[in-house]
């Protein structure tokens, strides 16, 4: 064979092998993994490598456990704060060095890393996703290893408890409350909403505030089960029975809640974000095209940042025929099953969600503390957020059985059709009931 050809071939092959292998070994935190990290994460890397380098060369480098904490990016202030906390953890623990990875397209990335058998050591888990992860045996229950578990609000503990087992601690939470535009209430000559409002008060105010000729509505509502469900609970209804064996969306309470929610839109007192030139309700509220919105505390920094001129306040959601209810959305720090460094990972989780860590994390007034013992000091600092925090007492967790995404999709799409008059509320509930029954029987 031609010698030159052979050399060329070998070179090509070697080149490809090198290129192929270079992308592979990203399970160990090496600089090669950098392209996938956000700026914040890259900064972490620089920070974390420092202490290691300063230690006496020799024994240390082999014994130091490297941890990865993976999450999604939120506001700059929160990202920076979390990084500071990780830095503090690293300086307090010479044998463990944690690294923060804030990644885009989080769900996909987490799922593939779990399936690939090399998950991060600690990662965010949304309460809605938890049942799927538990069903897949993907996460370790660390409830017994947590500090002062009873201090967490019971509702939030429930969000991460399945079949009596607490899987992971809530890192923070959000609840739904009613945001209202003070100027628009003043202009309409209405009293501001109060915490003891009822559905009728809400509906009457929405009617009075609507000026559809000028494209202004009393309220902005989206075709979203995550909002409608608050009315379902307020009506005294539920999605499933207590032990989650059968669906209960065929109840008169569900019908009442659905009629009320859809009725607000059908009667023209509320509009969807898209009809108000907005991507989500918060934007429509900020543009002052709707006098009331029903969002979580994430709307506050958004409004302060994007619409600083809006004169608004927050009040707890009105009570329905079945009493007060709201939704809580919460995320926990999970540790994977078969974790490489289980104890060190739990130590990091305890550091972040212990009383001190929780205080440091929630001190910005953006995330709310999940520990009841921090309530008073936190409220002293952020009194205007009290309606959100109060929700912790009577909120329902945003969590169902594995596979409930199908039910969620069915309700969302049904609400959308009902808003447009393409279907009836009875039909929406019937479909959701059927799909839910199918999911529960899988």
């Amino acid at each position, binding site marked *: 064979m031609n010698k030159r050809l052979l050399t060329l071939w070998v070179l090509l092959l070697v080149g490809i092998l090198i290129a192929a292998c270079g992308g592979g070994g990203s399970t160990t935190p090496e600089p090669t993994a950098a392209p996938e990290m956000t700026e914040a994460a890259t900064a972490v890397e620089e920070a974390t490598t420092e202490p290691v380098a300063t230690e006496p060369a020799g024994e240390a480098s082999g014994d130091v456990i490297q941890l990865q904490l993976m999450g999604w990016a939120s506001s700059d202030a929160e990202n920076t704060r979390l990084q500071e906390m990780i830095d503090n953890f690293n300086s307090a623990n010479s044998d463990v060095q944690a690294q923060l990875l804030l990644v885009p397209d989080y769900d*996909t990335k987490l799922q593939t890393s779990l*399936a690939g058998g090399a998950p991060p050591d600690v990662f965010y888990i949304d309460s809605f996703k938890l049942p799927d992860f538990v069903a897949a045996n993907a996460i370790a229950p660390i409830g017994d290893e947590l500090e002062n578990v009873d201090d967490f609000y019971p509702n939030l503990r429930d969000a991460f408890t399945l079949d009596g087992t607490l899987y992971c601690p809530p890192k923070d939470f959000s609840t739904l409350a009613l945001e209202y535009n003070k100027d628009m209430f003043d202009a309409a000559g209405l009293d501001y909403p109060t915490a003891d409002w009822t559905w009728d008060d809400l509906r009457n105010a929405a009617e009075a505030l609507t000026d559809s000729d000028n494209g202004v509505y009393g309220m902005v509502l989206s075709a979203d089960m995550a909002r409608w469900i608050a009315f379902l609970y307020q009506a005294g209804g539920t999605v499933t029975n207590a032990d989650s064996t059968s669906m209960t969306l065929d109840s008169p309470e569900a019908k009442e809640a659905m009629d009320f929610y859809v009725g607000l839109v059908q009667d023209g007192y509320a509009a969807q974000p898209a009809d108000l030139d907005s991507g989500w309700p918060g934007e429509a509220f900020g543009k002052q095209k709707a006098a009331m919105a029903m969002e979580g505390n994430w709307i506050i920094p958004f409004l302060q940042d994007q619409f600083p001129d809006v004169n608004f306040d927050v009040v707890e959601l009105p009570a329905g025929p079945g009493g007060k209810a709201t939704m809580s959305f919460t995320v926990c720090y999970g540790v994977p099953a078969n974790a490489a460094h289980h104890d060190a990972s739990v130590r990091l989780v305890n550091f972040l969600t212990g009383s001190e860590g929780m205080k440091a994390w929630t001190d910005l007034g953006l995330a709310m503390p999940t520990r009841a013992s921090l309530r008073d000091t936190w409220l002293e600092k952020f009194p205007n957020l009290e309606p959100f925090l109060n929700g912790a007492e009577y909120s329902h967790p945003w969590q169902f059985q594995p*596979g409930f*995404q199908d039910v969620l999709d069915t309700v969302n*799409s049904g609400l959308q059709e009902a808003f447009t008059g393409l279907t009836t509320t009875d039909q929406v509930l019937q479909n959701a009931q059927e799909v839910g029954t199918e999911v529960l029987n899988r």
Partner: protein
Amino acid sequence: MTVATGIRGEDRQNAVAGWLFMTPTILIFSVFVIIPIIAAVYFSMTDWNGISPPAEATFIGLDNYKTILTQPGIRQTDFFTALKNTTYFALGVVPMQTIISLLLAVVVNQSLLRFKSFFRTTYYFPSITSSVAISLMFLFFYQKSGLVNQILSTLTFGAWEPIAWMADPRGLIHIALSWFGLTIQTAPDFLTQTSLFGVPLWSWISGPSVALTGIMIMNTWTTIGTMMIIFLAALQDIPNFVYEAAQIDGASAWSQFRRITLPMLRPTMFFVVTLGLIGTYQVFDQIYVMSSGGPAKTTLTIAYLVYRNGFNNSQMGLGAAIAILLFIIIFALTMIQRRITGSEAAV
């Protein structure tokens, strides 16, 4: 080496060299294409949830396919809703993009046209722009007070009622039927009560929703550039003497186009329509950015359903089965299309 026995020495050496040079490509192709395809076929026959390691998945034979195709339930309904949406998408986009890109190619091929290269570049531009960027831009255009509504309002002297395009689940055929008083309330029972594959007949004949139509228009706009370039290359391949001969025989411009250009473009036409069919049946990115399958699942396409099942519903096995079905659908359509266009047109 015994790879090429029975061939003369020099040829054999060339053959060996050829294979050697192809080795890298074959390796890359295997790792990134062939192995994933085999894996997808395998996973489509498992109950893999996409979270646990794939080795833990149980082999369940054709159960996923049965669930999708024959078992009444939300998974069957979702698949056939997606099939319906995607088919409306293809039926709208493929003819539109083929006709418009052919017209554009003919226009920019005119020797008399000035600023020819300017127009060629302009028409091609959307094809090389990131589809995510274009999708975000169109989201603004399709807002209730957005550009599209404003233009339509101006053109109709204010008669056009602004709509929020991307939030409108009404089907175009349903809207047309409603002008004749036929709505879901007045439609005969056999339309609303009878279901085919979990989707009521009334929904099958919905037509593309307003939201899907918006995406169809955008998709046409972004793809005609590429199709135009292909047509342009083919047009310039048609020898001039054919036209000259026709002109001497007194053929008009129209009959030259109909009797010379179109027949000569037939292989290209097959190619463009095939590309169009494959592209439309696989549409994903614009859906992901603009609508996430909403409003009311009217922009749920097959490719997007694959993603939803794999990453939102923890049913990777089911998603893989849908992906395989999508492949079969595209393959069948291409074969049918090839039959219609004529086998001599095969590229």
